[in-house]
């Protein structure tokens, strides 16, 4: 049952993720955004399978509840016409492949060195929200704070850029 559900959610995540990019039904970016929502909800199903309920809830709350709603907001405000079918040619194709290859290398490297699959990880991920918070603010305080500062920088940057008059 557990395995079955894992494959169910994993396949759904991948299919919806694929549909975000390909979007064969319409060329409307809104549809892509909606597929992204479905993909994220399936992914939070995977977190539930790992008993990481907090992460599952946060995944839905932050990504499908806020981030993608903002995507939709921007898409609608910019009043995009049906996007023309983009063609992959020349320099664009080169850079796309380069970036995708780079990302894939990093991802595969991480998966190979992390020792996943050597033992079942299901039980080690189980824990209450309190444990997660303690971990975050003790062992991983530096990365956590760096990330916060990074987000703050992003926010300040956006506020600065959205001011009409840069002078």
């Amino acid at each position, binding site marked *: 049952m557990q395995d079955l559900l894992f494959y169910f959610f994993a396949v759904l995540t991948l299919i919806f993720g694929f549909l975000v990019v390909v979007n064969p039904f319409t060329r409307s970016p809104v549809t892509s955004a909606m597929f992204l929502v479905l993909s994220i909800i399936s992914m939070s199903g995977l977190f539930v399978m790992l008993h990481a309920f907090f992460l599952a809830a946060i995944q839905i709350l932050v990504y499908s509840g806020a981030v993608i709603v*903002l995507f939709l907001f921007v898409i609608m405000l910019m009043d995009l016409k049906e996007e023309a079918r983009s063609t992959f040619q020349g320099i664009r194709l080169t850079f796309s492949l380069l970036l995708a290859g780079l990302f894939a290398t990093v991802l595969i490297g991480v998966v190979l060195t992390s020792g996943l699959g050597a033992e079942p990880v299901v039980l080690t991920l189980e824990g209450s929200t309190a444990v997660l918070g303690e971990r975050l603010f003790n062992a991983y305080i530096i990365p956590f704070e760096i990330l916060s500062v990074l987000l703050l920088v992003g926010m300040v940057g956006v506020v600065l850029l959205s001011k009409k008059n840069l002078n």
Partner: protein
Amino acid sequence: MDWVYYLTPSQEFLVFSIVKVALVVGLLLPMIAYSVMAERRISAWIQGRVGPNRVGPFGLLQPIADGIKSLLKEDFVPDHVRKCYFWLAPALTLIPSFLVLAVVPFGSYLGPEREAWSKMVIADLNIGILFTFGIVSLSVYGIVLAGYASNSKYSFLGGIRATAQMISYEISMGLAVIPLFMLTGVLNLGEVIAYQVEHGWLIWKQPISFILFLVAAFAETNRLPFDLPESETELVSGYHTEYSSMKFALFFLGEYAAMIAVSAMMVTLFFGGWTLPIFGLDQPAITFFGGLLHIMIFLGKVLVFMVLFIWIRWMLPRFRYDQLMDLGWTRFLPLAFVNIIVTAAWLWAQYR
């Protein structure tokens, strides 16, 4: 009830979950129908009118007449809409409110048994409150997609307004309840009620949280004074301008279902859920009727909030959109942060 003891744990879970879901939905649907009726009667009373009083005794059958009317009307789909989203949107507005109620404890125990099946909550999640916020945050999609699918200017503006408004007030709402969980130390709604039994209702400890949550609840459910997404004077009727018949009725029901869900959350978080601090009603029930009484208390508290929602709608004028955004971002957000910091400082001083 002997057959209960011969079930395997998973069968037991399945059977009683289905029973509880049926119970909650069975209670919720009439509640929604009669809230619409209450809205019409109370608004009439406030405005010195009579209100609907012709169908049945005191007009009590009015919801049935309304239901039949919306089902039998022509379901007109304009030619210019985006069909898929147009059909999806009404369902997406109704579903989240139902899902929220899955984690709200609506009673203690039915009878003396202290098993999972006799506990009056559908899903006793450890992250109950996060689950509710996650689901509530999804409720914006119905409105946004309705506005987008309708493919008309007024609907579209309504959808855009709804997006901005709900995102803004969701933040205040989320930050408003953080002090509660700093005090209680748990995210499980059942344990929040247990804390309130021991230490008194949280409204007395966190009145600012409650006010923030209440106002954010009005904005989240798109009720006056914050019903900018459907403000009639500017946007015809906003995101559901193009809808007719039962699809329109679903938006209508969705609004009341959301009100009930938010009321249930407020009752649980701030007003002790199914408990009353008199006659020993704050202890889990040991008889069947005691359990029923707890459910009644919970429903009674929810009804008080429903009346408050309706009352405020007919007493206050609508905000302007910039005032709404101003209130959310420059008043509520800082106030919520101050509230968190003060609570943290108080806790620190207490346990130092």
